[in-house]
């Protein structure tokens, strides 16, 4: 331990001078720990502003929509009833990285949030490969400004309710607005506005070209085709299926191909899609991101205490708060609400450090490469190169499985009983790890639905395919979503659930007989 100094401040009151001093100390330690961050923009706000920020999914500017109002009302309700603290979460993946400190917080809380958000999350945003690939931190705020302005203009020109309905429909599909394999080009927003106009004209021309070949429009072509091709008199199938390959990005497909959308509507579809893409990495790195931030606030706070920069009272207050955050109620507890990503992530990163620093026999056997390696190197490696699914697959240790007493259970509707398929023992570790990893795989968590065929030469209907896994059917929200999809597409929408190459269920909207 290095020389112990006196605390910068004691008690729970804070001012800017004190915050600046603590921030400087945290920055010094963070540098030692090689936390590479975007510049921090720390904003002091009131609790009401915090609720506003929550309501707009943490975005500093957002377009208007009733669902954000709903979000606000529910946050407000929870906060007023004291069911929810408003301290940790909000930090924005942008450059500079924006974090919020609430004025009501105690000094300890402000230090904690700075460590958690400004150094934990911030370095995760900058370091993790998904964020590096999928988001452009320097452009997001600009893009949001563009989106807000564009949508406001559309509201003026076309009416609030027309825009609202369109956004409702896009929101229903936004989880299917991402290319999972193709890297998007970064959102460059100044260009965005400039190119937006060109795009309008170009896109519309593309769509028009696609739909030009409908039979009614070209009776002569049809009769020619008839002459050549007896069994397909209208030539409807001579060009093969469209699109030739299934499309997983539904919003992108609609933006480019929906026959009846006007160009401003296509632009709004695009805006929702771009934002969905921006949030895509967050949805896949919950455990890692929260775990990483929690691991670092824990490490940094302890360091501040070890150096004598915060006093006993502050560290005790911190431990109290930290313990609450990483608590994991058991499945049979009334407080159980699924696996707590803070608890799991923190346990895993702490465990990686332990495996590096004080490995035992089990660790050497399970993690031969990691055991005894440089811990700082290793946690950074883990943070950079994984998402929840692969992170768990790679690093969930028997020790953590035992500590959390994880077990897996099979719930099969053909079996009248549930079966415990694995528990935290020798035989179970790998299977528990496998199952937990799968639980975080977006591809298994969300139904796998793709565009299968647009009938561009026939009735213009759109067919989606749902690849069903383990006989798991779609939920009853299916029809409302199809209705939204139908609104965007403009013609009948069909959905087929397929299992083992066999269509097991068909749905469509409008319902047969409605049309």
């Amino acid at each position, binding site marked *: 331990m290095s020389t112990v100094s006196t605390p910068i401040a004691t008690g729970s009151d804070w001012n800017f001078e004190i915050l*600046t001093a603590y*921030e400087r100390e945290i*920055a010094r330690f963070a540098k030692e720990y090689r936390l590479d*961050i975007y*510049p*921090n*923009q*720390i*904003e*002091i*706000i*009131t609790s009401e502003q915090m609720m*506003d920020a929550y*309501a*707009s999914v943490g975005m500093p500017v957002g377009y*208007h*929509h*009733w669902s954000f*109002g*709903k979000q606000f*009302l*529910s946050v*407000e*309700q929870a906060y007023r009833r004291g069911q929810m603290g408003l301290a940790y979460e909000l930090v924005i993946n942008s450059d500079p990285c924006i974090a919020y400190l609430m004025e009501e917080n105690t000094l300890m809380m402000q230090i904690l949030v700075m460590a958690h958000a400004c150094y934990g999350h911030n370095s995760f945003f900058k370091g993790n490969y998904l964020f590096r690939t999928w988001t452009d931190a320097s452009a997001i705020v600009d893009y949001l400004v563009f989106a807000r302005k564009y949508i406001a203009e559309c509201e003026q020109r076309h009416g*609030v309710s027309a825009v*609202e309905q369109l956004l409702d429909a896009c929101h*229903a599909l936004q989880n299917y607005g991402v290319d999972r394999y193709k890297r998007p080009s970064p959102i460059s927003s100044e260009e965005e506005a400039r190119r937006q106009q060109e795009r309008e004209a170009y896109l519309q021309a593309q769509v028009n070209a696609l739909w030009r070949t409908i039979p009614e429009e070209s009776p002569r072509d049809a009769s020619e085709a008839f002459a050549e091709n007896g069994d397909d008199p209208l030539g409807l199938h001579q060009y093969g299926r469209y699109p030739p390959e299934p499309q997983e990005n539904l919003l992108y497909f609609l933006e480019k191909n929906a026959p009846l959308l006007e160009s401003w509507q296509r632009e709004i579809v695009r805006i929702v899609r771009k934002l969905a893409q921006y949030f895509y990495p967050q949805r896949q790195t919950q455990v890692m991101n929260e775990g990483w931030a929690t691991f670092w606030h824990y490490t940094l706070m302890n360091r501040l205490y070890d150096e004598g920069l915060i006093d006993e009272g502050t560290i005790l207050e911190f431990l109290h708060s930290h313990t609450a955050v990483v608590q*994991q109620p*058991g*499945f*049979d507890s009334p407080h159980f609400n*699924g*696996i707590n990503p803070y608890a799991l992530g923190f346990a895993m990163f702490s465990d990686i450090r332990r495996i590096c620093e004080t490995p035992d026999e089990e660790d050497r056997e399970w993690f031969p490469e990691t055991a005894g390696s440089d811990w700082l190197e290793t946690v950074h490696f883990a943070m950079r190169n994984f998402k929840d699914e692969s992170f768990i697959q790679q690093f969930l240790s028997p020790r953590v499985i035992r500590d959390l*007493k*994880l*077990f*897996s*259970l*099979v*719930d*099969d*509707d053909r079996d*009248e009983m*549930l*079966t*415990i398929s694995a*528990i*935290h023992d020798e035989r179970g570790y790998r299977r*528990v790890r496998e199952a937990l990893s799968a*639980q975080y795989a977006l591809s298994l968590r*969300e139904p796998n639905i793709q565009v299968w065929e647009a009938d561009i030469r026939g009735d213009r209907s759109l067919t989606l395919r749902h690849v069903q*896994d383990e*006989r*798991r*059917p*779609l939920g009853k*929200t*299916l029809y*409302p*979503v199809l209705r939204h999809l139908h609104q965007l597409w403009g013609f009948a929408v069909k959905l087929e659930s397929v299992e083992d190459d066999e269509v097991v269920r068909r749905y469509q909207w409008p319902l047969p007989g409605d049309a």
Partner: protein
Amino acid sequence: MTYFIDRRANAKHKSAVNRQRFLQRYRSHIKRSVEEAVNRRSITDMERGEKVSIPAKDISEPVFQHGPGGSRTIVSPGNKEFVEGDRLRRPGGDGEGGAGEGSASNQGEGMDEFAFSLSREEFLDFVFDGLALPHLERKQLRDLDEVRPVRAGVTRDGVPSRINIVRSMREAQARRIGMRAPIKRALREAEEALQEEERKDPVLRNPTRIHELKAEIERLEKRLDAVPFIDTYDLRYNNLVDQPQPSNKAVMFCVMDVSGSMTQGHKDIAKRFFLLLYLFLERNYEKVELVFIRHHTAAKEVDEEEFFYSRETGGTIVSSALTLVDEIITQRYSPAQWNLYVAQASDGDNWDDDSTTCRDLLLSSLMAKLQYYTYVEITPHSHQALWEEYERVQVRHPERFAMQQIVEPGDIYPVFRKLFRKRIAQ
């Protein structure tokens, strides 16, 4: 690398628009809750918003998701006694595993109601959506008794404390330029003449002329100096004029028949009606007072409690209440200072000839003082003399006298809306 920004003073209510959008979208749900709330409350208890619940299914934002069924594996924490291969009974009936959902976070799912609070303002917006106080404008222009001084340009007269320095100095400068210009011109001419005279050969010089010119120059210089830097003529004063102000006080007279024929049900209807009117006035005036007057054969001023919950038997003389209203106005509420409203509720049953007395009282005295008179008759029966006499009043004062019949509680709100529907200002 790090900077702090204090945003606390920045705009709050960033979500206000989104919140409004939400309320707009769920108007019909919210309106229903609001109407129920109006039914429950006492007149003086309006200092709060209202809790509103909307069924979660009406408010959900649908996305593709898995439904129950098929086979799935769930990892959960906190195993105490299970070992591999254990078989458990499925808890509940619907196949939802007791271990809960580990991963999916279907927001709102499992909650039957989406509950939130309307602020007081939002609450009242819903109550009075589309309504207006009739003839608010006319009252504002007619009564000049409440005045407030407002600035209206500058004047030449005034008291020193209201001198407008900038304007006064500008006037002074203009005057100085104006007054000095001809003198300066004469001075310059005299000086030039003198120089010319002095340049002449001494023999040709005219000493008298030189003397005259010097005297002239001296005189002109004195005159220049004599032009005052500032003159009372230059002074400008900020002008204040008294502008008539709309009176911001209102009083509502709640007049109710409490004779034996008025049941508790009738009074509840009356109460809801008064409540609406009170709230409505409260939104339009800074200060609203309530006067509760009940009557059978005689009228009496009482408090809210007694007004709504006591009951008498015997006959009815409506004019006793109107006379009392008139007296109270004279004693306490000058029509110049107050906006006066009367809301009367009755079952329409009145003593023999009293209805004509009521009419005369209204026409000769009361109507001239009142903003608006509303009469609701709570009865399923056909109208009697009072209604007919009131109809005559209405003919004379179509803009400020309104009457409606209420048969059952469901009529209250619609009737209220009819009485206070927005009219086009004249």
